[in-house]
């Protein structure tokens, strides 16, 4: 770039093209002789181009673009519809899942309650049975005790009669011994 001035010496440029324009005899773009021919060709070409553009080019390209836009729009609509479907499916799945969970919970609760009630009833039955047995045993014990106590009194009467007979050499009356034993047992 340092040597650039060498390449574009202004004097050189002037000396090179100034004579050229003059000996060319008129500047071609301003040569009116060529105008009619150029105008006719321009009119033909531009008319041809305009016809082609308006009748073929623009309808075709705008058709392509419109078809693409329609395709994209319909695809987007399809996608939105499918997404709605998927959302609905998810929602119904979740609803079903929640219902199932609830039902399972209910069954579990019911089963638990049933089992609890059963075991409770069983326990009560066993308890009642045990209580009955207990009562029977208590009654038996009481009966035994009464019987034993009765025996104890008989023995005490006999023993007292025998003791008195040995000590006093005289058999006491049965009534006196009974009264004395009863009195003693009262204490």
């Amino acid at each position: 770039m340092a040597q650039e001035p060498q390449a574009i010496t202004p004097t050189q440029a002037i000396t090179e093209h100034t004579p050229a324009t003059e000996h060319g005899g008129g500047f071609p773009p301003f040569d009116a002789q060529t105008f009619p021919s150029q105008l006719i060709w321009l009119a033909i070409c531009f008319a041809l181009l305009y016809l082609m553009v308006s009748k073929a080019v623009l309808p075709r390209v705008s058709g392509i673009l419109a078809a693409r836009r329609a395709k994209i729009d319909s695809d987007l609509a399809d996608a939105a519809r499918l997404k709605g479907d998927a959302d609905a499916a998810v929602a119904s799945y979740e609803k079903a899942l929640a219902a199932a969970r609830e039902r399972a919970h209910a069954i579990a609760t019911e089963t638990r309650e049933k089992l609890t009630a059963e075991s409770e009833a069983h326990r009560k039955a066993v308890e009642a049975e045990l209580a009955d047995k207990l009562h029977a045993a208590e009654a038996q014990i009481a009966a035994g005790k009464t019987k034993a106590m009765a025996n104890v009194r008989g023995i005490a009467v006999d023993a007292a009669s025998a003791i008195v007979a040995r000590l006093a050499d005289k058999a006491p009356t049965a009534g006196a011994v009974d009264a004395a034993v009863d009195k003693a047992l009262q204490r």
Partner: protein
Amino acid sequence: MADPIHQFEIVNLVPLFKVGSTEFAITNSAVFMFTAVVLTALLMLGTTLGRQLVPGRLQSMAEVTYEFVADMIRSTAGEEGLRFFPFVFSLFAFVTFANVLGIIPYTFTVTSQIIVTATLALLVFLTVIGYGLYSHGLGFFRLFVPHGIPGYILPFVVLIEIVSFLSRPVSHSVRLFANMLAGHITLKVFAGFVAGLGTLGAVGWAGATLPLIMVVALTALELLVAFLQAYVFTLLTCIYLADALHPGH
């Protein structure tokens, strides 16, 4: 020695007929105008034959071009501007291909002819006036009366608006013509240096590399200018057409 102006000469390739002293022929200019039309057909129709839903690279080029011009119209003239879509698209395609074709060595640049750019600019100018009067009647002339201007300077503003409106086709056409012309002359001058220095032997060959690099760089620049000027020409067309659609500013 290379003549930088020679490239702009109209050459009769196949003479057709004569009207008085004017000769009509298939010229180099006509050939490249037709080439621009054919290339537009290839770009826009040849690549979209498949009408693919998912475009390939070539079809994408056609679609991008379509969207580019459509967006340009929408952003400057609004949705109503799309009624001029075929016209604006034709202008864009024609000017772009004419500009870009011209960069290829030994080709002819159609848009370096003032008569071509002036015709296109006048076509736009007359379309603006014609459509403006057709759709708004005399209301079209509100275009020259901006809002919110104090009464005492209004005549001057209106005068300025009218002058600027009338000068539109001039600036519109000369901008494109002059850019193309100047770019191609510069390219040719530097290319001429290469050829000229090349005749001076070894030293000349060494010296010729610098202008050669310049020619390469300028070609890239000209490619940019070709697209840019086509864009500017089309964008100005859209802005002018917006006036015909909404003259009340």
